[in-house]
């Protein structure tokens, strides 16, 4: 039970088992950060060099900074935004997941499990099929609306407003709401007889169509969400001690929860509106990071952001090998990677009925 942040009643052996990880060794954080950064740089170089025509590493810097030949154009207008968007989307979803787990006091809380992503997708697809003339900025707002409606209702209904809820109950609520929203989305798609690729995009999610415009749409919300989240690290750490303890230490628990939820919605809504429902980032990344660096949000949130970016980046790279020479959405790869980790997490849950 390494990952839990004041979850459901836990046995004492767990608490004892967990303690060493809360006390984070600085050295360890440094190492993890270094490794993630190395992966990041390697991933960026790899992501930039592969594609329809290979651009060798030695030519990368020149191609990035002066656009003359077509290599440079491909790099600047296709691969760079794609890599940047992968990093941004990954960061947004991973931080949203970490926030959600803190706010819900539940290690299984994650945007894709709580119906937030499904809500955003449903509203966006509804808008596209019913009012096809909508585009650009409104999509992001619609996505916020969908994410908010789905996320808030699941959390309220699962009873998270009233203190601790069993992770099972919350997961069941979220999964059921998600499945309702996904089946609604599927039916919209069936009746629209839309193009196959659009369908797959909204069911799976990915960054293979990324352009600078997507990055521009996402960036302000991402910055807002990340800064907000980092600023909340201390209250979140206190919240992890339990509501009573946090109150005792002068925290406004309700305000922390509300703010945290709002940030989740901003981050997920924005990410889904440009990249579709890329699966499991919000569940898997915070979990891995928590195992590596402990559960202090001061380090967990920034490292989750980095880790999420790296994971989506590598998934996007792998997705190009699924069906070469053409590409499939990266969400397929994250789903296949994330699902076993979800199974592992679920198995490890100490649960009391």
């Amino acid at each position, binding site marked *: 039970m390494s990952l839990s942040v004041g979850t459901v009643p836990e046995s004492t052996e767990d608490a004892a088992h967990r303690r060493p990880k809360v006390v984070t060794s600085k050295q360890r954080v440094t190492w993890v950060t270094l490794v993630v950064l190395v992966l990041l740089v390697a991933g960026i170089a790899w992501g930039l060099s592969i594609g329809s025509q290979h651009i060798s590493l030695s030519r990368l810097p020149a191609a990035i900074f002066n656009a003359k030949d077509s290599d440079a154009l491909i790099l600047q207008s296709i691969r760079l935004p794609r890599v940047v968007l992968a990093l941004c989307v990954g960061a947004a979803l991973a931080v949203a997941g970490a926030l959600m787990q803190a706010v819900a006091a539940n290690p*299984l809380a994650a945007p894709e*499990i709580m119906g937030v992503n499904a809500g955003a997708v449903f509203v966006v697809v509804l808008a596209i099929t019913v009012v096809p003339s909508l585009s650009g900025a409104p999509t992001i707002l619609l996505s916020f609306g969908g994410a908010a409606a789905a996320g808030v*209702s699941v959390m309220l*209904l*699962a*009873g998270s407003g*009233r203190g601790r809820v*069993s*992770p*099972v*109950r919350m*997961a*069941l*609520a979220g*999964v*059921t*709401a998600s*499945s*309702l929203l996904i*089946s*609604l989305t*599927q*039916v919209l*798609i*069936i*009746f629209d*007889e839309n193009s*196959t*690729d659009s*369908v*797959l995009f909204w*069911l*799976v999610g990915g960054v293979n169509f990324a352009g600078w415009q997507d990055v521009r749409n996402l960036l302000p919300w991402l910055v807002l969400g990340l800064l907000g989240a980092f600023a909340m690290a201390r209250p979140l750490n206190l919240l992890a001690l339990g509501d009573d303890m946090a109150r005792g230490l002068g925290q406004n628990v309700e305000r922390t929860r509300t703010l945290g939820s709002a940030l989740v919605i901003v981050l997920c809504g924005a990410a889904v509106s440009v990249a579709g429902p890329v*699966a*499991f980032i919000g569940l898997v990344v915070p979990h891995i990071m928590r195992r590596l660096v402990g559960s202090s949000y001061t380090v967990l949130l920034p490292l989750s952001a980095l880790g999420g970016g790296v994971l989506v980046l590598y998934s996007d790279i792998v997705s190009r090998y*699924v*069906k070469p020479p053409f590409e*499939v*959405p990266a*969400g*397929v790869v994250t*789903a*296949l990677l*994330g*699902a*076993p980790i*979800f*199974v592992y*997490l*679920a*198995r490890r*849950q100490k*649960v*009391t*009925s």
Partner: protein
Amino acid sequence: MSSTTIVAQHVRRTSLAKRHPAALMGSLGVLAVVLSIYSLKVGATEVSFGNVLHALVGDRSDQAAAIVFDFQVPRVLLCWLIGTALAVSGAVMQGVIRNPLAAPDIIGVTKGAGFGGMLLLLAIPGVPVLAVVPAAFVGGLLAAGLVYLLAYRRGATPVRIALVGIAVSAAFEAGIRFLLVRKPLDVSAALIWLTGSLFGRSMSAVLEILPWVLVLVPLIVIWARKLDVLGLGDDLAAGLGEPVEKTRRLLLLFAVALAAAAVAVAGTIGFVGLIAPHMARRVFGGKHLASIPAAALFGVLLMLFADMIGRGLAPPLEIPAGLVTAVVGGPYFLYLLVKTGK
């Protein structure tokens, strides 16, 4: 649906259910039969009750009666069988897992069956349509088996089954998406199947699910008392001499087989297995001998209602029944969450 809810509420107020459960069960049954006959009439073309009557006595001389006989009757029969299978399956799962939110959708059956069916549909083009049913059935059983194995740690505690079920479902969902992306030939047909629909189902589908329902449902009803005992908790049940793990395993196997059979013939129709047992428990209380048959009846009513709406709302377009059950079941489920909240 609305009429059944009203009936249910009315009954609760007068506590008729407690005093005359048999009478109430009977009237639910009558309601289901009436709805069945009425739904024979609903559809894209004009069909009179006269036609329906002709069809029911097997007279196919007029064309409208032939429509009823060839296309509507199998669908209504399927509503009965699928509604029963899903609802009883859900009731057993909720009893065994001791969690009111458990359902075939949760324990991995639905997604596993979906994956099995899709694997065959998309990976092997030109496969005979009939082969999809066994493939989906096997997929559902395998998924449920996997859930049980992964959840097993000195016995499979109910809550862990539910959690692992969600995760395994997600894994199969990922597999379904992978297949869709690799072979996007006819995504729309695959999606219709995944949403759950009785579109184009004929008598052969009825015959595929019939044996499972005929054998397993009576078995489960006979075992209803064991479900009550399991509901007391593992320790108490063991104290009463019940081989807890063995009984649980067998009951779950029955429930999984029922749900897999239903998904195999109609695709992934959600929420019926979740909410029908609830309605039954609310009206008839927690004794499984009464609540399982009642759940079956509520399941049948839900399916009849969903298919009728699907056919009658925007003809000639057919709305998949799975969508209607999701739209009806979703809000009911949310209501349940609030009600069962602490």
